[in-house]
């Protein structure tokens, strides 16, 4: 009992606590002793070369990926092999994917109300009102009755963000949200994300948009080969990289 008490006290301030997290794909060691604490309202940008484990780590947070060793606590709930815990964590964590993953057989409005109706058990009217509110926030209320296939990539990604927000999450995870978009659509999605950041949402964002990182991140995490190599404020990371690996990475992405 006292141990648990201690744990909750310790985690009081931190909405995500990751301790010594390790993950293997068969023989391949994807995540090595990851330790990360995220405060409520903190905005974190995760960058690193492809295959560095940044997406995998993010996806562990709402258990789209399992891990083999270590512990992970989200909003005071420990991630264990228990459906109740997993569901409780997923209710608190919204996620936006690289390829949007909207449900193509449902209208935009139905995409947004699906969670509130079937998970939160809200009346349809109420769910639709909430959905329209968020569609207005991402500036596409006029698309409500269309299907995802009828929207541009940027619009689809904004719908995906609105879909997550409809569930009232404490934390938002972004897994390369702009990587599949044409350049002119990246801005409209980043604008929505910046607005969200300004409202105080806790955000973890895997992205290569360094401009976005400079603008909103409280902390930038650089990962390579399954490890967190460096973490610091954006200024320090970009202007004063401590390791060769980060220097190399920055020179590669900023050169062009």
């Amino acid at each position: 009992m006292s141990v648990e008490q201690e744990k909750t006290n310790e985690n009081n301030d931190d909405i995500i606590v990751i301790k010594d997290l390790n993950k293997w794909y068969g023989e391949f060691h994807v995540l090595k002793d990851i330790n990360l604490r995220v405060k409520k309202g903190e905005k974190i940008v995760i960058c690193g070369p492809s295959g560095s484990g940044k997406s995998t780590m993010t996806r562990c947070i709402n258990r789209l990926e399992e891990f083999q060793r270590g512990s992970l606590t989200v909003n005071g709930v420990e991630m264990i092999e228990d459906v109740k815990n997993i569901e409780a964590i997923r209710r608190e964590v919204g996620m936006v994917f690289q390829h949007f993953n909207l449900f193509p057989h449902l209208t935009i409005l139905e995409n947004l109300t699906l969670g509130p109706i079937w998970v939160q058990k809200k009346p349809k009217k109420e769910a639709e009102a909430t959905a329209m509110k968020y569609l207005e926030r991402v500036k596409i209320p006029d698309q409500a009755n269309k299907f995802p296939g009828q929207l541009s990539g940027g619009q689809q990604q904004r719908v995906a963000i609105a879909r997550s927000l409809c569930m009232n999450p404490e934390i938002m995870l972004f897994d390369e949200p702009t990587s599949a978009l044409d350049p002119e659509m990246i801005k409209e999605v980043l604008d929505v994300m910046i607005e969200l950041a300004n409202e105080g949402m806790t955000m973890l964002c895997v992205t290569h948009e360094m401009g976005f990182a400079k603008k909103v991140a409280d902390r930038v995490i650089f990962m390579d080969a399954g490890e967190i190599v460096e973490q610091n404020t954006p200024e320090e990371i970009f202007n004063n990289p401590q390791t060769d690996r980060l220097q190399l990475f920055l020179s590669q992405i900023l050169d062009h």
Partner: protein
Amino acid sequence: MSEKPQVKSSPSFFNNPRNRSIIYQLLLLFGLGYFFYSIISNTLANMEARGIQSGYDFLFNTAGFDILMSLIPYDATNTYGRTFIVGLLNTVLVSIIGIILSTIVGFIMGVAHFSHNLLIRKLATAYVETFRNIPLLLQIFFWYFAVLAALPSARQSMSLGEVIFLNVRGLYFPGLTPEGGASVVYAAIAAAIIGIFVLKRWAKKRQDDTGQQFPVLWVSLGMLFGLPLLALIVMGFPFAWDIPYLKGFNFRGGVTVIPELMALALALTVYTGAFIAEAVRAGIQAVPHGQTEAARSIGLKEGKIMKLIIVPQAMRVIVPLLNSEYQSLVKNSTLATAIGYPDLFTVFVGTTLNQTGQAIEIVFMTMAVYFVVNMTISFLMNRLNSSVALTER
């Protein structure tokens, strides 16, 4: 002839694509017309030479032969027309049994492919690979000669609770004869079916209004079985059991399923089921994994993800494939003739044609039947397809 291509405002008649296309089509039309004319005139001349009368009068003549199994009263004194109906009903029967059972088997085996249990997964793969790769005719022979013919004789029947019997002569199970008050039970079944629709609408409306969910499936199943059961109890079971009993060398009473029907239905089910399993597997695999991930990330439970996200999208792929599997099954049922199951083909194109010699009429009638049956399946499946099709753009 000049070296330069001539550019004229009006090209020559034969070089105009429009004229060319009209000429070619006219030639084709003429060719086709001559083809059919020669076939028909030849046939008529031949028939006349052999003294065969064309026309459908033969349908009213006495057939004079027995049929192994009939869903309607039939004996040798009935007409050829009635042999057509008997055969048609037998074809429809085996097709319906085959379609229902192969759908069940196919969906179970298709979903089993995604099981977390290795044994179940391997079993599903083995099933599909085995039965998809062996000719259907061989499979029919396998069930008929290797499995069903190896069953014990009537006296050594396998039995289930002394009411259902299985032996080399067929499957025997009890029949029900309605007595007074049976109509109440039928009414209860009808009420249950209507009730399910009402319940479904009510549950949806209540969820829309209040957000509360209702276990429609379980309550529906309860109604479907509970209401008729209640009616049965209240009316004091208004049915008489007609239990098969051994008399001499064979069973009397009850309902008999002849081994020919069992073998054919089994073979069609197992064979088509393997293809349907593949269609189901393809349908589920066609739904990207990202859909499941997105659904999980908004907190949906696995069962709801299946119902709300995976199945509706998988059906878009499965339904058109099902359509052609069902059509194949109906056409394949003509292989009945190999083991003597009296389907339309065996009875009408077999015996009736042999006795009357009215080849053209009989073949055309039979072709028309399969055509109409398959068009009906197509029509129904297209309706189903448009209800699951994706609205896009």
